């Protein structure tokens, strides 16, 4: 069922960027990093899932994780990869909401890292709008379920009929 807000973790965004880098920009060396969108149908299914949400939200911590990923790729492509990130954020109207460390339960930060927990807290902020957290991390999904927040992993979206 579609809600109002989807909260995006680093993994799904990285997968979207990687898919476009490989298919639109010919970044063949990144093909091996595609974990879920090996076929165009998987990309279409996921973007259709995203389009059923009016608002897309993430946190600046996720952008930092994207930075760490991009800096490990071939340096000549960094500018173009950041342009892709910019295009994706602009295109899907991504909102970035800050969650400070002081707002985060430290035991959860120690277990899952600040980026994951920032998304959990973002989802809690938007509870009346039935947020859905999208991730590739089973651990984050489990924390969301414990906090009674809807969460789904990409692999589940792709196997849905």
């Amino acid at each position: 069922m579609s809600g109002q807000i989807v909260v995006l973790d680093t993994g799904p965004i990285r997968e979207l960027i990687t898919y476009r880098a490989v298919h639109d920009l010919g970044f063949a060396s990144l093909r091996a990093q595609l974990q879920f969108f090996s076929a165009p149908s998987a990309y279409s299914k996921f973007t259709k899932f995203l389009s059923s949400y009016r608002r897309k939200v993430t946190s600046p911590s996720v952008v930092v994780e994207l930075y760490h990923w991009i800096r490990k790729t071939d340096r000549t492509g960094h500018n173009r990869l950041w342009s892709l990130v910019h295009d994706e954020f602009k295109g899907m109207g991504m909102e970035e909401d800050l969650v400070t460390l002081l707002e985060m339960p430290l035991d959860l930060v120690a277990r899952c890292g600040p980026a994951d927990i920032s998304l959990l807290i973002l989802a809690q902020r938007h509870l009346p709008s039935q947020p859905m957290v999208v991730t590739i991390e089973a651990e984050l999904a489990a924390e969301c379920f414990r906090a009674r927040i809807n969460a789904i992993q990409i692999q589940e979206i792709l196997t849905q009929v």
Partner: protein
Amino acid sequence: MSTTPETKPGRHSQRVAAWIYTVLNPLVDAIRNETRLLEKANISWRCHTRRSEYIRPIQEYIEAHYSPNLEDFLAENAEFVGKFEEHDNALRETEEQASKFYDILVGSSLFTGAVGEMLTEYESAIGPSHPYIPNTPSLGSMKNDLPRYVAENLINNIATMPTHYTIHAFWERFGQVLRSRMPEFAGYKQRPSFQGLHTVMENLKQTSASLRKGLEEDRLRLCREFDLPAAQPMAPQTTEPDAFRYLR
């Protein structure tokens, strides 16, 4: 300094290998991508940077610390100096012409009025009674930015937008109409600027295609002449910086 080489590199030359792996290979990949985009008349021009995001000057395709290899390659392969300049000039002209055309579009009341009318029609159609697709987002909050966004997409000849993009449904409904009305939006007096954009874009396409051919041929020539593989052989795991790997 003499530009004439006094000694010719030998077979399996590390110097030539450096040209292939740090200059020619990144350029071949990048220019192939350019030609793919330009085949679709997409110059990836962005209004926030006023440049082509995925088509760059030659120097930007080469890692900064490999610039000496680029200079060395050009010193021995002088025919590419002109070809690279031609490419960068064609790109600059295209970006300038795109900026000019963009300013004409967003300054045209005919254009902004048409986009406004389409937005009104779109907003009235996305209610629960006549949805284009379920959960289609309202574009009301981007009312002021929409003409800029539309102009950028027109310049890049965008036919379809990904389904998760906010203006996907709007573009599905109005994109084709807007594209067909581009010359009209430019206005009678400004029509040369619309034609000018197409002229410089076509020039960039030809230049890019010719450069791609030249680079591919030169790489093949160097591989044959110096008996080198076109791709760097897989090196064993090392902690050395990438810059030294090809010297193994």
